[in-house]
């Protein structure tokens, strides 16, 4: 009976009134070992409930030892466990007992799955803060040492992430030891560990005394930056940023820059790529003076690197680099030192480089101002708009807003239009899809007149594209355009064209009308929907293709909330009832669904208070034992979600609303 007494100490949600509350907890505990991963996961996610019911004492002595050895499970379960344990201090008796959580997290920190290990380390870092300084040295630091000297590299990699949290709070002697352990991991035999150490180097440097940074971290950094494995060297570039932030200008020049210069010219393209990728951070960390002397020349080299990946990464950084240059003399510097290289990239042989440049080049116009943009950048924009690679053109088009602010989009419209038209008719549907997505943006910038004149016909043409994804995107596009240009515009330009398609001989196009109505009805409002769209929808209920008919039912359900009661009662309901008697099973099903939705709405409008309670949905919780049990179900019929395996003769006894909720859709067909 010890277990019953337990909850008293930690009485909370589950504690209290005796045996009734024990049952669900008992289920949760048993399901920690259920064969179904989902149930195990569920139980692990409710670990705090279990711990609360067990009380702090039993959690420490029974639950945690069990969890410590549960590292055989699926990754997602272990991940959830690692996450839960990070917030468990209160459940084991507060900070005084936080160290009890270390053993299970220690074993999780050695599993092979990186995400689990990382989560375990994150939780350990969290818990370390809850340790008192004494407990930290008595329990946490020994754990870090154990991990750091573990046999397998998984445990040593995990250790790398823990040094920085225990260092600031440790005593001088222990600090020395911690630094020693970190040093040895930096020269570990396995590249995995060296990589982990390199990636935590910056973080560790931040908590160290400045003297130790100079005397210990910098040599480690220099070593890692000249490691034989380029996968290690490239991580040193990242550490470069954090270390530079800690040092004075002179120290950066003396201690960091030699390594950085070397990295920018590394033999391995991956290291140079990393320098290009981290360029903005590096620029900020080393300050304007070193940037001018060292980084700009390095950047020029990266822009004309022999490896396309490096050029692309550098091209991506062009705008940020220019933005971060000191205001004084920025314009001349860009014009003289950066722009010539950019001009060459516009005609690069590699399309990734060009498209990387295209994604940022427009941003330069705000930095350089109107005149320079027209004189120097505009030719580049125009060249890229005519590029053979669609991605380059798309990137230019997607960033039109930057240039619009500076010189106005009209400057570009001559070239823009052919580019858009060409993309709109591209043979690859993904390209067409991409340009459709920019249509609302373009429409906003070009204005309604220009749009009607040049682009409207394109938007309508997409509605009859032979690829469904394009037709779908085109309908969404119409909706966004209506939101932008207003209902009047819709009524005049869009709606008539859409409704004409209802008579198209191709049933796919007729269905597109319905999809458009679904999308547009809300934006257009009640009047247009009722007067113009509804008659067409109702007329299509007599279509000879079943797919159209059941989409009519779906549309009616969709636009129902927009229509007024009269229309619902007098026009929609009879049509739906007719469809409800359709010979096609699917039409019947969707008609029934629409009928119940419409009926519900009508009921709500008539009796807004009384009927507002929806039938409660049991089983929404995956854990079926935990749901509130109703009086009628307690006769051993089993959980509600098993209904669909019952034979059909038990079904009629149950409320139909419930069946609709729980039967998977395809099973409904066998209902009748």
């Amino acid at each position, binding site marked *: *009976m*010890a*277990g*019953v007494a*337990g909850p008293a100490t930690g009485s909370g949600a589950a504690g209290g009134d005796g*045996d009734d509350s*024990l*049952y669900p*907890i*008992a*289920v949760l*505990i*048993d399901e*920690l*070992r259920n064969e179904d991963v989902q149930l195990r996961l569920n139980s692990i996610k409710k670990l705090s409930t279990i711990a609360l*019911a*067990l009380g702090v004492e*039993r959690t420490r002595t*029974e*639950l945690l*030892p*069990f969890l410590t*050895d*549960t590292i*055989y499970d699926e990754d997602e379960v272990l991940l959830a466990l690692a996450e839960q344990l990070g917030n468990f201090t209160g459940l084991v008796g507060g900070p005084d007992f936080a160290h009890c959580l270390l053993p299970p997290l220690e074993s999780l920190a*050695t*599993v*092979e799955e*990186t995400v689990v290990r990382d989560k375990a380390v994150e939780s350990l870092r969290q818990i370390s803060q809850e340790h008192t300084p004494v407990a930290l040295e008595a329990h946490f630091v020994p754990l870090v040492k154990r991990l750091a000297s573990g046999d*397998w*590299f*998984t*445990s040593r990699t995990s250790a790398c992430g823990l040094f920085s949290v225990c260092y600031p709070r440790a005593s001088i002697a222990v600090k020395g030891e911690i630094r020693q352990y970190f040093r040895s991991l930096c020269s570990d035999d*396995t*590249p*995995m560990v060296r*990589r982990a150490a390199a990636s935590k180097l910056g973080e560790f440097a931040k908590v160290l005394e400045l003297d130790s940074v100079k005397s210990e971290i910098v040599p480690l950094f220099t070593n890692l930056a000249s490691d*034989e*494995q*380029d*996968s290690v060297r490239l991580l040193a570039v990242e550490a470069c940023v954090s270390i530079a932030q800690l040092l004075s200008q002179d120290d950066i020049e003396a201690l960091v820059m030699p390594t950085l210069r070397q990295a920018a010219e*590394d*033999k*391995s*393209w*991956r290291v140079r790529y990393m320098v290009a990728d981290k360029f903005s951070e590096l620029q900020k960390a080393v300050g304007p003076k070193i940037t001018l002397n060292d980084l700009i020349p390095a950047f020029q080299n990266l822009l004309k690197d*022999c*490896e*396309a*990946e490096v050029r692309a990464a550098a091209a991506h950084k062009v705008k940020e680099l220019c933005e971060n240059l000191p205001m004084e003399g920025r314009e001349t510097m860009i014009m003289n030192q950066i722009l010539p290289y950019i001009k060459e990239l516009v005609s690069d042989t590699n399309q990734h480089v060009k498209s990387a440049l295209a994604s940022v080049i427009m941003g330069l116009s705000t930095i350089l101002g109107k005149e320079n943009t027209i004189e120097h950048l505009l030719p580049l924009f125009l060249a890229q708009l005519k590029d053979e690679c669609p991605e380059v053109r798309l990137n230019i088009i997607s960033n039109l807003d930057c240039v619009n602010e500076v010189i106005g989009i009209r400057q570009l419209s001559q070239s823009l239009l052919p580019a858009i038209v060409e993309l709109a008719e591209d043979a690859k549907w993904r390209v067409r899809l991409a340009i459709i997505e920019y249509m609302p943006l373009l429409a906003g910038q070009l204005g309604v007149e220009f749009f009607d004149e040049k682009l409207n016909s394109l938007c309508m043409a997409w509605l009859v594209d032979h690829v469904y994804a394009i037709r779908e995107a085109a309908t969404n596009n119409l909706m966004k355009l209506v939101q932008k240009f207003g209902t009047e515009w819709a009524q005049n330009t869009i709606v008539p064209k859409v409704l004409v398609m209802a008579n198209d001989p191709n049933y796919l196009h007729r269905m597109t009308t319905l999809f458009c109505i679904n999308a547009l009805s809300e934006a257009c409002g009640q009047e247009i929907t009722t007067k113009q769209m509804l008659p067409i929808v109702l007329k299509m209920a007599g279509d000879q293709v079943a797919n159209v008919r059941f989409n009519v039912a779906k549309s009616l359900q969709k636009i129902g909330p927009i229509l007024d009661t009269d229309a619902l009662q007098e026009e929609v309901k009879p049509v739906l009832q007719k469809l409800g008697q359709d010979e096609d099973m699917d039409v019947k099903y969707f008609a029934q669904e629409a009928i119940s939705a419409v009926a519900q709405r009508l009921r709500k409008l008539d009796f807004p208070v009384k009927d507002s309670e929806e039938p409660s949905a049991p089983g929404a919780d995956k854990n079926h034992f935990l749901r509130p049990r109703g009086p009628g179900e307690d006769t051993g019929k089993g959980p509600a979600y098993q209904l669909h395996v019952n034979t059909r003769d038990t079904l009629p006894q149950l409320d139909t609303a419930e069946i609709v909720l729980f039967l998977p859709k395809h099973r409904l067909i066998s209902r009748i």
Partner: protein
Amino acid sequence: MNYPDEITYGNKDHFRLASFSLPSSLLHWSKPPPSRTWTVVMTYQQDYLSPCLYPLSALSDIISTVEFNHTGELLATGDKGGRVVIFQREQESKNQVHRRGEYNVYSTFQSHEPEFDYLKSLEIEEKINKIRWLPQQNAAYFLLSTNDKTVKLWKVSERDKRPEGYNLKDEEGRLRDPATITTLRVPVLRPMDLMVEATPRRVFANAHTYHINSISVNSDYETYMSADDLRINLWNFEITNQSFNIVDIKPANMEELTEVITAAEFHPHHCNTFVYSSSKGTIRLCDMRASALCDRHTKFFEEPEDPSNRSFFSEIISSISDVKFSHSGRCIMTRDYLTVKVWDLNMENRPVETYQVHDYLRSKLCSLYENDCIFDKFECVWNGSDSVIMTGSYNNFFRMFDRNTKRDVTLEASRENSKPRAILKPRKVCVGGKRRKDEISVDSLDFSKKILHTAWHPSENIIAVAATNNLYIFQDKVN
């Protein structure tokens, strides 16, 4: 994605092979051995296992790859039936010192299943083409196994504890009445018999149009490559949905195709260097630092053809079937149909050593072409110190070449002469002329008995030889 069912064994002793104590008189030697003497450690026939698992045809039992792990404690074999069998070396015990070296079945699992590519109407065989072990990272072992199309990462782990105690059930599994539950039970872990289980951790699929012939783990421990006939892809162990193509030799017009990739391997220490061999008998070394795509090689190893030996078969027999870096990383070894060659990484124009494996077959190339044997892909291996190399031949013969003493030996792996602890007698093939006793004539060689796959323990003189559906493990004679 459905993983094949894993097969685990509750009790691995169940598959322990018969013990090998024999009267010492059998260990008697008549003549001193030429270089080294090899004793049989164990033989293992796939069909020992089969009746317990599946009714398999003999064909699916054929061993298609053999590989020791980095410590040599484990040995993995893959077969045509898509199974992987892992053997574990017997731990040393005080009273049975001589038993050290025996390998027992540790785990068996179905790695690949036969599949059908409906888009191309192609059957995808389940045959395991290659197995590669990963460096050990925690208490579990990891290996990559591949068939023609899909690489899988397997975890082989032990479990010796089992949780006990339910709240809602009693010990026999009967449900308890919920009303009687008055206390909560937390499960307790109890020791149980050791269980070894293999679980698929990652599936790297859909990246190869052609047949995968090699996989190789990089020394950075985070990537590996897979090579098919025309392309080489680079993968990260953590990422299954993308890989980088680093070599692509597919011509724009397939009619211009003149050569295919036959094997590829990473340098053992330099993470940026790898080699691949081609059907034209050349080897290319690439540096991944230079550029992201390694279509252009850094070094090109080729031996000029001897015009006097040119024949219709020249190109076929010069095709390289296997390429291996030495453990030191300074040499590479290639196997073509008749020879093994050792190349110095710094000398591209000719090999530093060439060993004839079965030169006596040169006169029989015509019939070997007719029975397709000329296309057999023999593998080759280094010993732990790179001083000896081993490769297979026909008639269940395999060859060893000592690079220092320049002595070579032919040994036979067969059931007749492989009583445990028996000593292997060197075999000789005679070419024409008089046949001496103990010699076997070229014409009586059995070409259906071929040894394609062999493996050498990374630090000791223990070798594993796969002869069709038999695995033989031999050990340097323990004195």
